[in-house]
């Protein structure tokens, strides 16, 4: 299964890189495919961090606008397109969370039917790319089943809410040493599940 996951991951990476290259050439259809593939991941991710549907929408909007405007800031040496997108999404969601009590950013929309029609064509042609990613997601979920409940909880609290290890120890009434060990173990399992570790026999 690991090899299967790795193969799917590599396929997704190649498709993402190709989409990003097209986006850098101002191809809106490529952006539409990337959107259809990842918006269903970024939206609940943004929601998990910000706790607000409305703010999560703004996060997704800003991530794809960032991809459109600054797609050339991605460097393949620093990892996959997906990891870059997720890191961007997390940063934007945390920024919004910090500014929770400030005025929400406004939005622009002019309801261009023509644009909607144009991108919906890409929706059809990008179906396979989206389904391929869904298959990969299922593989990842299966490969992360060996994360214990506590390991997953600690990773989530740390990753989504930015809780420090000492905060976690206080909050969960667990010794700091145990928190550190469980976090290390959880990260190790995550790494094993990621493509890099999948390469190892």
């Amino acid at each position, binding site marked *: 299964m690991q090899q299967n996951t790795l193969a799917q991951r590599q396929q997704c990476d190649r498709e993402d890189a190709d989409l990003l290259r097209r986006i*850098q*050439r*101002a191809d*809106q259809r490529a952006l*539409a495919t990337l*959107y259809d593939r990842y*918006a*269903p991941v*970024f*939206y*609940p991710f943004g929601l*998990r961090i910000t*706790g607000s549907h*409305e703010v*999560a*929408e703004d996060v*997704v*909007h800003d991530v*794809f*606008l960032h991809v*459109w*405007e600054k797609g050339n800031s991605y460097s393949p*040496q*620093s*990892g*996959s397109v*997906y*990891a870059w997108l*997720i890191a961007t*999404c997390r940063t934007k969601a*945390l920024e919004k969370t910090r500014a929770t009590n400030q005025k929400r950013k*406004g*939005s*622009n*929309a*002019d*309801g*261009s039917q023509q*644009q*909607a029609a144009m*991108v919906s064509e890409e929706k059809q042609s990008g179906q396979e790319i989206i389904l391929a990613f869904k298959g990969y*997601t299922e593989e*990842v*979920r299966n490969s*992360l*089943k060996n994360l214990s*409940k506590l390991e*997953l909880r600690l*990773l989530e609290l740390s*990753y*989504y809410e*930015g809780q420090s290890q000492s905060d976690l120890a206080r909050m969960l009434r667990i010794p700091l040493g145990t928190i550190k060990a469980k976090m290390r173990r959880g*990260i190790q399992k*995550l*790494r094993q*599940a*990621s*493509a*890099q*570790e999948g390469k190892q026999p």
Partner: protein
Amino acid sequence: MKTEERHAQHELCIPYVFGRLNPGNRKQFEAHLETGCEQCKRELSDLYEATALLPLLLKQEAPPSGLRQRLFSRLSTKRTEQPRGAKPAPTPQREAVEAPVTKAPPHSWYLYASMVMGALMIVGLLLFLNDQLRTTSELEKKLSDLQVQVQQKQDILGILQAYSVEMLQLVSVEAGSEASGKIFWEPEKRRAVLQVVNLPAQPVDKQYQLWLMKDKKYFRVSEFDVNTEKSNVFAVMTLPVGDKKEIEEFAITLEPRGGSTQPSGVIQLRGATK
């Protein structure tokens, strides 16, 4: 940099990725990265890839359809302002022979002044129109969001305000648990609203499932996920039967994601009608 120092910096990779470094340490670590430490860069890349798997465990949910249009409309607007990626239009080559210099006609400043005035008026008008359009668009989006929310509330209210509505309290079977719930349903239409409070977030591979017991048999009602909020309201579920006399119990269990045909997990909340 000494090997020990490099090693010490390497230890900061995990807290850096999780955003747990204080500003001073972060700055120091970023300065270290700029020295070109390949070991730390590789470690960071691996960690970013690994942590990027976490969001894949969340239940995927497409954002409201209006967002897609909002995004692409924005791109369209921006492209009109300044085409992106496209090379600038080639500047016409200057003629090898300069055009003959013509003297400005007398009183030409009138012409320039009127041109400047006209341009300023056009710019002002465009700014005003742009502002008006933006305000209208924002209002339209808010209105659309509100309409969805109102529809959801109306659905819930429709049940709560029905001529005959039943309510049953669901309580936790686990000692010390603060979780509880309420189910409201309209017997005739068999439509129900479920509210759960303090139910812990489900593990990634699990989902809560609501059951209805009739004739000592459990019938599947619906699966649901709770979010981080204290109280979650789920509308509108259809019950297999609506008559309270036929319903013996409601129960909530934790089941494998996608739901089960029969309860397999421990009952989290329960409410008996008798």
